[in-house]
């Protein structure tokens, strides 16, 4: 289908494309191992987060928690804010985003263009500072509605009801699903759906490993695990460093012509790891992974050019996913 009543109706239904050049070659006579990319940059605002934003707003409307003209408050370092800004505009809400100042300028420009208001929290001090800033804002505006994507079941449900069924429809022989781990919504929703339908399917998480600033807690007990996270949905979980993520992001555009953001590079790194393991084990594999967004919003980092060491330095201290 290519005709929709509105932009919101055009959310999801993204293409799944094979990667014949990046897929590892299995030896003569051995079963094939194939990589497939789910192009989530083909959503209305260009990221997988449109699915979650749409489902969370709808759920809040249905529960009577959002009424026309209300203000939505969302602390976000990027894509969720952009998606919510679009949904809020089309459904008549005001959006205020709280963001750390160390995000790329494209994200700030995009949010402003969609009509969102932005409150910056200082990069120094990491999450502790973000907590302080957010608390202050909430105290001043008790009537603002926060959708809280880290604990909002509609975030995971978006993927249970859309991403999962789309994948199974397009790739009934799927053996592995690989995606990024942020709020965990993508992996929890898609992972649960696939586990119910596909015997033995492997659900693989790739999380970005940032510079030290991001882990600057004062104490281990200040750590966070999103409420949505249920480790039993996952089969494996990889931590991918900046250098590997950049290398794979570049490889994806050089070899297969897919221009993606750096979180996709991290996801591809994990996807290649499981694909190569399958080749070594002589097992058939259809590995589907998520292209979470395009590379446009990250061009200003300069990390698409120069040496890997330069790129690593350029991204140090940035939230690149």
């Amino acid at each position, binding site marked *: 289908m290519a005709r929709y009543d509105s932009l919101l109706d055009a959310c999801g239904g993204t293409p799944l494309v094979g990667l014949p050049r990046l897929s590892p070659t299995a030896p003569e006579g051995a079963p094939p191992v194939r990589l497939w990319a789910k192009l989530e940059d083909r959503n209305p605002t260009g990221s997988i987060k449109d699915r979650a934003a749409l489902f969370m707003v709808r759920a809040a409307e249905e529960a009577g928690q959002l009424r026309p003209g209300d203000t939505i408050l969302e602390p976000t*370092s990027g894509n969720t804010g952009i998606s919510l800004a679009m949904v809020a505009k089309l459904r008549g809400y005001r959006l205020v985003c709280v963001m750390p100042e160390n995000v790329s300028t494209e994200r700030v420009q995009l949010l402003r263009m969609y009509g969102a208001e932005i409150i910056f929290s200082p990069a120094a001090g990491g999450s502790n500072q973000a907590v*302080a800033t957010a608390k202050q804002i909430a105290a001043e505006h008790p009537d603002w509605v926060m959708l809280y994507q880290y604990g909002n079941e509609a975030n995971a449900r978006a993927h249970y009801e859309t991403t999962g069924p789309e994948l199974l429809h397009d790739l009934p022989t799927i053996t592995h699903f690989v995606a990024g781990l942020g709020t965990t919504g993508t992996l929890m929703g898609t992972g649960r759906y696939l586990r119910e339908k596909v015997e033995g399917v492997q659900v693989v998480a790739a999380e970005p490993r940032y510079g030290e600033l991001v882990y600057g807690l004062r104490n281990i007990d200040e750590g966070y695990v999103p409420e949505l996270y249920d480790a039993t949905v996952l089969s494996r979980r990889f931590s991918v460093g900046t250098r590997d993520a950049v290398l794979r992001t570049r490889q994806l555009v050089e070899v297969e012509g897919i221009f993606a953001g750096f979180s996709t590079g991290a996801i591809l790194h994990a996807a290649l790891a499981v694909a190569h393991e399958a080749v070594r084990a002589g097992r058939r594999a259809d590995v589907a992974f998520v292209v979470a967004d395009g590379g446009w919003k990250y061009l200003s980092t300069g990390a698409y050019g120069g040496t890997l060491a330069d790129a690593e330095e350029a991204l140090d201290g940035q939230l690149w996913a």
Partner: protein
Amino acid sequence: MAIEVRIPTILRSYTGGAKVVEGAGDTLGELLTDLDSRHGGLKGRLVTEAGALHRFVNVYVNDEDVRFLGALDAKLNDGDSITILPAVAGGAFGFAAAAAIGSHKLSTVVESGHPVPDVAR
């Protein structure tokens, strides 16, 4: 046998400020015991009294989360690289800030102790 272990900023008080230390052991549990003999107190920050990995600690063996490899019983090999990190959600920022706001007005407290607004349940 030597296994390289990366220590996060908040735990470097136990390693005299060192970012990377070396240890030995056939399993992660043995490695942590070995490290604790030279960096007293470190193991207690990573492992609970009940003998499980602390909820807010993530340990990776060659970039893979050890909880999916047998946790403290995960087998280690010479030349493995271990990374210890505090658990922070996808960049930490959004979650930390959201949790803080949640506790203020819009929320009720769920079991995990983290506050979430009604719509989140």
